[in-house]
């Protein structure tokens, strides 16, 4: 069971980023997986020079900076538009990004080992835990908590939340929303980058990694409920546990289990586990 928690950890960070920019900017970011892959590739480059801790700290920042540029140039034009346009744009961006990764780093996967200090296992009674995964869990928990505090306990968060409710009023009060949304987008893709760094030693670094994981991230967001912060966290954990149980009893369905779970949740609660009403799309 606890293994599900460890499996789900970096998925949650990834899905949280996806959920953030969707609920606050109204953008369905199909390029989210590309930022995740970029995070892993940047980590590969940084790690060779500054070690894994350096990669963990700098790579998400690098991804966030690239996010700022893309947001300033393109994404910001889509906030007020039909969500379909942003969907198309980010879809194209994802494809262009994957091919660029291929051009720069080659089609072959890159080796990325678990950092020396985090190798090995921890035994608790009859259970065995990988140290690295526990570290991933700790970092993920910190990232989730940090985001929550930022959005709920700071004046920045207050403006963000007010802005999604009533942008006109926020403007009338003399607060510029556009830099705030830029920051949110940067935070969102930065989280994707962080997830990329954490997954690199587990699943390897290769150009298609973003495309492969994106669907899982969407499933988690949908199960959790669009726009719900804790919904995403819960959904990530549940998906991890359900997957683990399926492997135990019927492995061929392991990858299908999360889709079955999604169908089930949507049938019972069309808005997802903890989804709120969504004025923009209803």
């Amino acid at each position: 069971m606890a293994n599900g928690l460890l499996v789900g950890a970096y998925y949650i960070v990834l899905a949280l980023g996806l959920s953030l920019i969707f609920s606050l900017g109204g953008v369905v970011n199909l390029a989210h997986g590309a930022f995740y892959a970029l995070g892993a590739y940047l980590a590969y480059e940084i790690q060779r020079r500054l070690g894994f801790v350096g990669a963990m700290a700098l790579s998400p920042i690098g991804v966030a900076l690239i996010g700022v540029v893309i947001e300033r140039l393109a994404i910001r034009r889509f906030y007020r538009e039909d969500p379909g346009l942003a969907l198309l744009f980010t879809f194209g961006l994802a494809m262009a990004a994957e091919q660029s990764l291929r051009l720069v780093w080659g089609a072959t996967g890159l080796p990325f080992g678990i950092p020396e200090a985090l190798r090995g296992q921890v035994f608790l009674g009859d259970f065995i835990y990988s140290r690295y995964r526990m570290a991933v869990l700790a970092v993920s928990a910190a990232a989730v908590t940090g985001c929550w505090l930022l959005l709920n306990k700071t004046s920045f968060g207050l403006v963000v939340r007010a802005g999604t409710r009533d942008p006109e009023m926020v403007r009338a009060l003399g607060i510029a929303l556009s830099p705030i949304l830029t920051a949110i987008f940067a935070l969102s893709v930065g989280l994707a980058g962080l997830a990329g760094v954490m997954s690199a030693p587990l699943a390897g670094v290769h150009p298609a990694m973003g495309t492969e994981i994106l669907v899982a991230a969407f499933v988690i967001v949908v199960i959790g409920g669009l726009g719900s912060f804790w919904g995403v966290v819960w959904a990530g954990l549940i998906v991890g546990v359900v997957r683990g149980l399926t492997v135990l009893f019927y492995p061929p369905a392991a990858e299908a289990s999360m889709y079955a779970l999604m169908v089930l949740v949507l049938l019972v609660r069309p808005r997802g586990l903890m989804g709120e009403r969504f004025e923009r799309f209803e």
Partner: protein
Amino acid sequence: MASARDDQTRLTRRTLLKTAAVGALALGMPAIVRAQPDVIRVGHITPRTGFLGQLGEYGLNAAQMAVDETNTAGGVLGRKVELIAEDSVNPGVAVTKVQKLVERDKVLCLVGEISSASALAIAEQANRYKVVYINSGANSDELRGKNCNRFMFHVEGCNTMYTKTIGTWQKSKNLIKGAKWYMLTADYAFGHDLFRVSSRFLTENGGTVMANDMVPTNTPDYSAYILKIRQAKPDFVYINLAGADQTTFLKQYKEYGLPIPLAGGVMDTVPFWGAGIDSLSGHWQSLWYHGLTVPASQAFTKRYSGKHGKPPDNQAWGDYLAVKILLQAMAETKSTEAAKWVPYFEKGATFDILKGRKGSFRDWDHQLLQEMYVVKVKDKKDAKDKWDIFELVQTVPASGESLELIQPTKQENPCTMA
């Protein structure tokens, strides 16, 4: 009125015909210009995009190298050789690509492929056109058995060869008799074929399959499987996985540090390089490895590395050899006709295959009889560079033994050529 309309129609029709003729001429021109009868064309068809794409690139580079070397040495039958390469993509596309290669480019023979499904499609076309096709990378036993045909030959080893190679080593280390194995199998045609072959070998030699999990392809996380294995306490873990699935599993298996020894049904060098020596463990079987000490093999590695900045993998070896073997057949039969080459191959012509012993095709299923190798993942401190990941443990079959030892028997994989 009626006749006027007729005139108009006729005019239109004539104009249309003219336009069509000019168009056809324009389209046909390049083909006419290119059809130099003094060039021997070899068709190369292999996946160059998708999950097998990285292997395909190695294959193409090596095939091109074989052609270039032949041309530098004066060509074949006094003619230059030209390689025409196509991306096979999938079985459906592969069929149209073969038709294009044979009908438009007039290639004399075909080389390539990695996916067994596409290889089957290519083989059917080759049989229809009566063009020799050498399979340089598809493993499925059925290509040599149920689906064999007179025009298809195999440089790549089949699943049984891979299984028996590692099996010979396991037997010698007494890892099979009375042992309980835990298997993980890729849940698609290739995995099923491999599971059939490897579990048969295991039970025939007195071991038991204690469990087999069918694993969906592209599984990103194996921790649940690994914990399951740990609970089951098998004597040995055997994986019938390939490509990225295999390396992801290896990585995470090492992460959990289970003490149970591990091996698998196939091994391609490229994904192993991709995983990196830190993530690897166990004994594996290899069709060809660039660390081989055979002089011809080292010379090949040196030429390839000099050109591409990295050593060749087993796929490069396969495509290089396939082209070389075809060119040798042309030179020795002094003919460009497939009808002459097939008997030449079937009568046991031998080829320098960059290994300790020469290779030759088995007459009844067209499989190249050859040595394979058991290799062991090196200690990191012994590795000279990121490609230096294996040390050679033994050659299988050993130098005194028959090369038939690792081959499927007629009973195991019956083939009747039409």
